[in-house]
């Protein structure tokens, strides 16, 4: 049986940690649609306030760019980029917890443990040894 579970210990994947540069890049990308609009708005506002020509454009770039950077930093500081969408995260967690409540083959358990790590969920054994042995026996000797 190709997906038959075995009793060998399941290797747990290493968690992947993003560097601050990668996080900042992600924050800037998330806020780039708003950031690019903000630069234009700020430039226009500076011009209306009385600054002319190149100075207005440069000031708009500087102030707008700084605003964009602040938004990007705020996103990575206050909103967890690793959980960019709370409702999807919650749905995935619920499905995963439901699955982990039952015994399952080792291949499924490996997938689920990797998933749990990526979601930042606490890892626990998905099935007791007795349950696993019962499952293996059942698969080896189907009725």
């Amino acid at each position, binding site marked *: 049986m190709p997906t038959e579970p075995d009793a060998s210990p399941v290797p747990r994947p290493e968690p992947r940690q993003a560097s601050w540069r990668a996080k900042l890049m992600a924050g800037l990308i998330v806020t780039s649609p708003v950031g*690019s609009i903000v630069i234009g708005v700020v430039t226009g506002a500076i011009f209306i306030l009385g600054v002319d020509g190149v100075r207005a454009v440069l000031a*708009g770039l500087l102030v707008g760019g700084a605003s964009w950077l602040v938004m990007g930093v705020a996103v990575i500081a206050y909103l967890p980029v690793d959980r960019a969408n709370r409702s999807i995260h919650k749905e995935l967690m619920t499905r995963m917890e439901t699955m982990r409540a039952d015994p399952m083959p080792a291949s499924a358990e490996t997938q689920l443990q990797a998933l749990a790590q990526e979601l930042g969920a606490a890892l626990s054994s998905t099935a007791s040894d007795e349950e696993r042995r019962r499952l293996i026996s059942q698969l080896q000797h189907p009725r």
Partner: protein
Amino acid sequence: MTTSLEWALGYGYVRLWERLHRAEEEKLFAAPPDELIAEATRDTLRLQGSNLENRDLLLDQLQRAASVLAFNAGVSAGVVPASASVVAGLAPPFHSGDDLIARRLIRQVRRAINEYRDDRRLALVRARNQLLKTIILTALVTYQLVALAVLAGVPRPAFTSAIAYFLIGATVGLFNRLYLDASAETAVEDYGLSAARLLHTPLLCGLAALGGALIVPLLSAQITPAIDTGAAAAAPPLAAIFDITQRPFTLVLAAVFGLTPSALISRLQSEAEKYKSDLKSSEAPAAH
């Protein structure tokens, strides 16, 4: 792609759904017969309401596999009976090997449903990212227009009028979005596509309003013959076009042109609604 970027772009969640589905399929394959029969019945209900292209084939496959499992388990309640035609290798009396085939068939059907749903999720994420790229490029081009006006030293009243036209178009466009959103499906997660569309609307409608406010006076001057000379009238200067005090009717023009991108916006919306409807139609009939 780094992990953070993957989350920011939304592809990470699609990958996690795929991983969850693979685990679910493995678990299903090894499930006890009663659970497997119940899951097969549940998948039958999911398929019956779905838009999968090979839905009938999958339903047939599922019903036969469930019949084999039910026969071997000695149960009949809740199992949809197989049709009269017989698939090779799955004819009664059933053997233990048939049980394995039935399990594989049920797993295949589950995988087909899962892949269909994952494809739709990926399509939503791609559409959202594509729209975000369009927003960024449009915003940058708009910025260049603003910078050009500033560097050219346009009169400030004209600049303020142009901003007023833009804002009127953006407001009308957003108002139109209220109408479009009233008919939208909101129960299905769209991975940020509706939020991207919300950001896209004022930018697009504002630019359309600005373009309309500029083009219509220029064209009408060229088309309408002057009474005294018979020749085309001279085009009004830009400073006069972008002067609300001289031409207040241009505000109406801006409002009208602010509505023109609605066809494009509603097409984007209907495309997203199709993906969401596909996801909704293949959803499990009950929470699990």
